[in-house]
């Protein structure tokens, strides 16, 4: 049970409640030999939750303990059991760790924090050292604060989490990752630099530093490439069911799915089983990122239904899928594009499509 009283969170009248997660070692149960310890929930404070309780503007009512091995080997059962405990507890925030460099503990903190966030929608916080494998696994899902290597840093690490947790509990705005101290989650937003230098000045200063071999800091670190492997070729085209997909915005003239002309979040599919080509005046493009004249005059130049129907007659392909799929690619974010792609692939699989010709603009 979660305290869903958001007015409480924002208004700050009633004392907020928190739940804390630690492993068997920090609960004082034992080390490696006790790592198979099953999950248990205790009222009150144990180990690190004592320090957190003194800094957090919330009362830690319960501490959950679970052996790292148990969480690692019986993840599903462990998560289910812990979520079962929490169904009967009111809480506004969930804290796990800090896990320092302890790999299995880090993964456990990440696993349970993510599950709690997904089920209850409350803020979850944990802390790990950058070497901890849990960081890479969970940093996009939850706030993981940059922690020390060992328990000697316990108080410092808890303090950073508590300061951030207090902002969340009070509904105060939180700062960027580098200021707050958590690992980057891949979420980028614009901010105004207070009395900060204009972009032109920042650019010139960065270049002078780069030219002089001094250290400089890019404002946009280039993330690692997220590439999809090229699929294996279609074995026999004469038997294959081929679909046409476009980001060129070809739709029936009335745009029945109201696909946006830019920054699209919607897609549509349109029956072409009984037509030989896309006629001008029946189909058009609603894509705002290119000159529409040629596409409106002959939509087949963007999505070649006419040519594919000809191939079908010639027997070059086994079947042309009954529908073509369409959305708009201009300004469309990668995340939205990936989501639409997943949704479309699901439909294609249902209809046993073997291959896709994807056209842009």
């Amino acid at each position, binding site marked *: 049970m979660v305290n869903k009283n958001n007015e409480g969170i924002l208004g700050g009248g009633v004392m907020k409640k928190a739940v804390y997660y630690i492993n068997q070692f920090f609960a004082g149960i034992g080390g490696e030999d006790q790592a198979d310890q099953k999950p248990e929930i205790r009222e009150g404070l144990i180990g690190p939750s004592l320090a957190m309780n003194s800094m957090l503007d919330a009362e830690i009512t319960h501490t959950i303990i679970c052996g790292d091995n148990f969480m690692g080997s019986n993840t599903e059962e462990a998560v289910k059991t812990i979520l079962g405990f929490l169904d009967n507890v009111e809480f506004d925030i969930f804290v796990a760790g800090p896990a320092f460099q302890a790999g299995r503990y880090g993964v456990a903190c990440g696993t349970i924090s993510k599950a709690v966030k997904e089920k209850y929608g409350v803020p979850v916080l944990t802390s790990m050292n950058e070497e901890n494998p849990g960081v890479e696994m969970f940093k996009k899902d939850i706030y993981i604060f940059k922690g020390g290597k060992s328990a000697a840093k316990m108080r410092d690490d808890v303090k950073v989490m508590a300061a951030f947790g207090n902002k969340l509990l009070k509904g105060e705005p939180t700062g960027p990752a580098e200021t707050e101290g958590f690992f980057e989650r891949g979420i980028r937003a614009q901010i105004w*630099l207070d009395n900060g230098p204009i972009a032109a000045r920042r650019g010139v200063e960065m270049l002078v530093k780069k030219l002089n071999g001094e250290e400089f800091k890019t*404002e946009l670190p280039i993330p690692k490439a997220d590439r999809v492997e090229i699929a294996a070729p279609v074995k026999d085209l004469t038997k294959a069911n081929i679909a046409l997909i476009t980001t060129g915005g070809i739709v029936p003239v009335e745009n029945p799915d109201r696909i946006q002309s830019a920054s699209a979040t919607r897609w549509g599919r349109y029956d072409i089983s009984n037509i030989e080509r896309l006629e001008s005046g029946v189909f058009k493009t609603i894509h*705002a990122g290119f000159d529409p004249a040629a596409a409106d005059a002959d939509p087949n130049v963007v999505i070649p239904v006419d040519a594919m129907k000809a191939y079908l007659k010639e027997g070059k392909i086994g079947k042309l899928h009954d529908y073509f799929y369409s959305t708009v690619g201009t300004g469309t974010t990668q*995340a939205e594009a990936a989501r639409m792609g997943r949704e479309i692939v699901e439909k294609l699989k249902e209809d046993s499509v073997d291959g896709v010709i994807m056209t842009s603009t």
Partner: protein
Amino acid sequence: MKLEMGNFHVQDVVFAEKTFYKDGILSINKEEALAFIKEDEHIIDLDLVIAKPGESTRIVPVKEAVEPRIRPDGRAVFPGVTGDLEMAGEGRLHALKGVSVLGVGMHYGSFGDGLIDMGGEGAKYTLFSQLINICIVAHTDEEYERFEQQKKNTAIRMASHKFAEYLGSTVKDLDPEELEVFEIEPVTKRDESVSKLPSVVLVMQPQSQMEELGYNDLVYGWDMNKYVPSFMNPNEILDGALISGSFMPASSKWSTYDFQNFPTIKELYKEHGKTINFLGVIMSNLNVSLEQKKRSSIFVAQMAKSLGADGAIVTEEGYGNPDADYIMCLAALEDVGVKTVGISNECTGRDGGSQPLVTLDVKANALVSTGNVSQLIELPPAEKVIGELEALARDGLSGGWSFDELLGSSVKEDGSIIMENNAMFCGDMIAGWSTKTMKEF
């Protein structure tokens, strides 16, 4: 090349009996001004409205912004556009500072048009809220594009350039209150104290992606779609050799005002002779096909290399597809040993989780970020609207929409709005004004 910019700092703009400038006050005879603008028969309905900083005024759809200027020697302010073709960048120029002429649609907007709030929360999103804006609010007979999302907006844009020159003529024979001098010696004739410094070029990529002529930025009146990169003196850009077009989504746009005052050029001038040797500008463009993009990047890299540039700043008038030109150009320069910095905005989506640029290359390791195209912005109603508010939702402005199942229309019945930053007029200030950056949250 030596350009002397004589500045007149305008404190107020008023309608009066006579059009003249005195003691910081720009007075305009409205009837005469309207008659001048209406000399273009394509303008069939017209008003002139003054918008001042701090007012609760919303201006939309804004198509162009121009700083009023005059050349005392009679040459055109925009050579090849408002008058005969002459070389720009040298001699005397008089400018009315703190004001801009805005070209605003009386009714209809288009993809690249933007919005300006003069006061309140919305004012922080554009530079133009800090200027006194003299708005040409016009309706035209350009029926061929009336209901097109892409409009050339020729009549309104050209009126803005001509009217800026018209207003500039008020200070033609006056003594400037301040003189800014932009002087740069020929590349091979520089003092050793300068030439020993690291040599730097600025690479500009103005918007030129429409294959049909009439939508793109112009250089000396020439459509930059039909253009390959060439070497320019920075003074030419400050002096009206380039004008803005009518295609790029507003927040990523360089208006003509931006070209006339290009902050990145001015910052490079400040460092010239101190920490760098500013060689000049490689004026590139933005293209559609991969081959065109590559061709331009080859021209840029070769020119930078042949000029002996050690470093380059690359900046693009755009986001999305143009990112490919931007990143390719940065990588091409790094490949020939020219160290680069890029200045542009990002588009990370409403949740901030998307890839910031369309293409990425680890060679682009020094980037300045000026804002987020897709930041969602909600603003309360303004007391006064210049133009037509419904255009934001109805006419396909890049950051507006007529329908969304969660957010509804961009324009609410009470006049409040919800939009993406994309439609804030020059909102990401990529020319270099931006005090915004992007951070991980």
